[in-house]
């Protein structure tokens, strides 16, 4: 192991046996500690959920699973969830593709604004769309009243629309990054030889993108079925697994069935996580050789251009309108019902208190998460022990797990001493830490790949102990990754709903839950204003992130996705 060899080469100035031992094995010790942390805060709660689903009053039993598969109600819920996932994935992929195609190959003027709009939903909680749909199409909705519509917002269609809008940025980002890595010369060659735009798409672009599209699709599917907010707010009488899990625990306080639902929800996620990371890894059809060339706008034939433009415009327009509506609604008590503009929503004390709490929790989570993320990255890249890939997999898995499941897991695992954490800020923070660890870890890994081990060896050659090298060389270089992890965790934690809805305690309201409560209660004004405040906070974070990554050339590997 590099570190061990380094310190063996040096004359250790201190001479103490313990220090030598530490120096030699620091990476391993660190790895062990981190592994314990992961196991404890990520795997242990999941195991608890699994156990709860199998353990009845008299010991191990499959009765709960039997009940799940035999009762119509649960079956419907599962079916709806899977169907939602499928529809959502397809629609998001199509829209994301059109958007990405336009921003990489369309006319220059369109590119920046389109990209901006496609990414804007990232800064908002996913349930913002549910909110805006209620304002427009609810029973008292603006459009409902204007056109005397009889369309039922609450139900399957409402959830599909809001989920689709919420996940467009994810699809867009993944497809855009694949499209950009596609050598434009390939399409130009085909064009040169007479292929029409449609033919290029059919024979060149899409076949080459296929692995990337598949990857994106799988990820979208997983995140859609796990997302709680939209389905809970707009579901109406249509059951979906995520909100059902919530009702099972908080409504019927049936932890056994709740755990069963959680396990059923996790199953596709874990499966897809494996496929995504291990089967599709490396199966990329990007170009061989040569440097990437910026893609110039092409004359796209109307056959392709028109439908793409329509889809793009509709999607972008919808996103823009939703944001605008919520913004406007924040100034009314109930838009469409009351008619005076007011700032009362923004000044509402309880919602401000909840935002303050959210900031506190997210800050702590971000700090811990960034530290652990960076350390994990180091251990994964530089460590040479057995089980390294397992640790990497474990640290990334938080992403794939539905928030509701981890919330329940934490509730089960940490309610009783000596592990009692419920009722406080730490359980909320830790939950966020381990769910969103992946970004800090990925950022750290990518940054570390840029630092050759030789730099650390040079430092050692000049007389530094391992600790000193780590402290003076590695950490400063990894600082941008730390910041990235910090800001990202902060941004995601602050809008996250799915897990925290189980873990809030008296006197400790969180903004996301407050918005959810308000939306369900029909207090649209408060919900909108609190949402807008969250959006503002997240926007500021993103700008800081952007600023820092420009200054340190962190690169565009920081694709922030948003599990909630």
């Amino acid at each position, binding site marked *: 192991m590099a570190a061990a060899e380094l310190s063996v080469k040096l004359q250790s100035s201190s001479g103490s046996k313990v220090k030598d031992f530490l120096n030699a094995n620091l990476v391993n010790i660190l790895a062990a500690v981190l592994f314990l942390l992961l196991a404890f805060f990520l795997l242990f709660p999941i195991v608890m959920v699994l156990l709860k689903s199998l353990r009845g009053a008299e010991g191990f039993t499959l009765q709960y699973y039997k009940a799940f598969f035999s009762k119509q109600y649960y079956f419907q819920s599962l079916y709806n969830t899977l169907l939602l996932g499928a529809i959502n994935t397809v629609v998001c992929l199509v829209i994301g593709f059109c958007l990405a195609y336009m921003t990489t190959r369309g006319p220059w003027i369109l590119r920046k604004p389109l990209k901006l709009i496609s990414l804007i939903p990232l800064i908002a909680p996913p349930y913002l769309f549910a909110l805006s749909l209620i304002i427009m199409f609810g029973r008292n909705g603006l459009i409902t009243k204007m056109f005397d519509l009889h369309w039922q917002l609450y139900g399957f269609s409402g959830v599909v629309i809001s989920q689709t809008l919420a996940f467009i940025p994810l699809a867009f980002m993944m497809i855009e990054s694949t499209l950009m890595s596609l050598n434009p010369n390939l399409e130009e060659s085909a064009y*040169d030889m007479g292929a029409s735009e449609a033919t290029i798409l059919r024979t060149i672009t899409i076949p080459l993108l296929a692995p990337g599209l598949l990857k994106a699709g799988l990820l979208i599917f997983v995140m859609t079925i796990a997302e709680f907010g939209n389905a809970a707010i707009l579901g109406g009488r249509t059951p979906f697994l995520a909100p059902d899990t919530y009702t099972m625990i908080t409504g019927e306080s049936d932890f056994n069935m709740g755990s069963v639902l959680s396990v059923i929800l996790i199953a596709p996620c874990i499966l897809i996580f494996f496929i995504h990371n291990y089967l599709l890894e490396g199966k990329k059809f*990007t170009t061989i050789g040569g440097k990437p060339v910026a893609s110039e706008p092409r004359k796209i034939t109307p056959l392709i251009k028109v439908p793409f433009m329509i889809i793009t415009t509709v999607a972008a327009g919808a996103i823009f309108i939703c944001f605008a509506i919520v913004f406007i609604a924040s100034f009314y008590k109930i838009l469409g019902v009351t008619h005076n503009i007011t700032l009362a929503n923004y000044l509402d004390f309880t919602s401000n208190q909840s935002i303050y709490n959210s900031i506190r929790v997210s800050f702590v989570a971000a700090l811990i998460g960034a530290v652990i993320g960076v350390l994990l990255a180091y251990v994964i890249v530089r460590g040479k022990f057995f089980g390294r890939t397992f640790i990497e997999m474990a640290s990334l898995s938080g992403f794939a797990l539905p928030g509701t499941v981890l919330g329940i897991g934490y509730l089960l695992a940490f309610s009783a001493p000596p592990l009692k954490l419920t009722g406080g800020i730490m359980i909320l923070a830790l939950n966020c830490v381990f769910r969103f660890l992946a970004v800090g870890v990925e950022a750290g890994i990518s940054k570390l790949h840029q630092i050759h081990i030789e730099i650390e060896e040079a430092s050692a050659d000049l007389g530094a102990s391992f600790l000193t090298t780590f402290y003076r060389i590695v950490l400063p270089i990894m600082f941008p990754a730390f910041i990235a992890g910090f800001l990202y965790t902060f941004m995601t934690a602050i809008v996250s709903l799915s897990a925290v809805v189980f873990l809030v305690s008296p006197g400790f309201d969180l903004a996301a839950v407050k918005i959810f409560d308000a939306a369900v209660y029909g207090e649209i004004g408060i919900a909108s204003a609190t949402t807008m405040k969250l959006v503002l906070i997240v926007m500021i974070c993103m700008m800081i992130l952007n600023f820092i990554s420009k200054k340190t050339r962190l690169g565009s590997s920081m694709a922030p996705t948003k599990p909630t």
Partner: protein
Amino acid sequence: MSMNANEKPMLILKDIHKFYGNNEVLKGVSLEVRKGELVTFVGPSGCGKTTLLRLIGGFTDISSGDIILDGQRINDLPPNLRDTRICFQNYALFPHMTVAENVGYGLKINKWPKDKIAARVHELLEMVELDEFGDRMIDKLSGGQQQRVAFARALSLEPKVLLLDEPLSNLDANLRLVMREEIRKLQERLHITTVFVTHDQFEAMAISDRLVVMKNGLIEQVGTPIEIYERPANEFIAGFVGYVNFMDGRIESIDKTTCNAVVHTEYGQLMITLEQDDVKTGDDVLMVIRPESVSLSLDCQDKRQNVICGTLVSYMYAGSIAKCTVMIGNKKMIIDQYNPRDAQQFLHAAKVEVEIPRSVHLLKKKK
């Protein structure tokens, strides 16, 4: 290679301008390329050579000017309707298709019947000596093989003009030399008009019929390799195509009958055989002295014509060539000694004699 001077040019570029936003990348480029000619655009990074190539191919719009291909103005035609074919630097081979499918792609798009496609693909692969490789996937080929496939694909539709964008840049040094020859041979055999872009001036000189030296969006000089090397039009070109020593001088007299000129320099008077007529007595000139044209001798006698004394500062012996640096006064002169004799003595020498050749190109200095 001989060609009919009265033949209409295959490709004419008329006063081409290209703006990217406010940035003018091509500032008025005009050129005529004859049929069957291999013309190379060469110049430092950012000179506009690749942009110009892409303009000809139709991948970028012209801001102003005309492109005329075989008598037809093609400004507004998309790439597939121009009879030009491009071969990109990174080959742009379709990774999800086999070699045969790649080469036959254009034919398939243009709806050739299947058997004709097969025949033509076979013919092309034979031409580039890859006829056994039809069923291979692209990623199983070496760099040189991929190059050849790209070449074959570009030729598949029998274009009037072949555009090659730094095709050899991704190959290692030895392979470059080999491929360079092969491409040139193939091009000559097919008699196909070719525009080649490279940043490697030696490559350009080795294979081109004519070079187009570009800088900052303008053409500095168009000429055969010999013309460019021996009679560069300005300092930049002189220094671009090879190492050059410049020496200041003033023309004192010109003998019209013998074409001898006496040039006064700070190291004495030099006798030059003039092969140009753009300088006259009294002009201040810059002498273009190539390192390999200077003779080096031990000791300094300083008695013969065109001989200057100097101090040998470094002598790097490399077998077939010795690279020497000689200080003349306070000016440095680089000299290449091919087949170096008395190398042992030169290694320890201090004073040396430099003989400036008679035949030296003169650049008129701007006032």
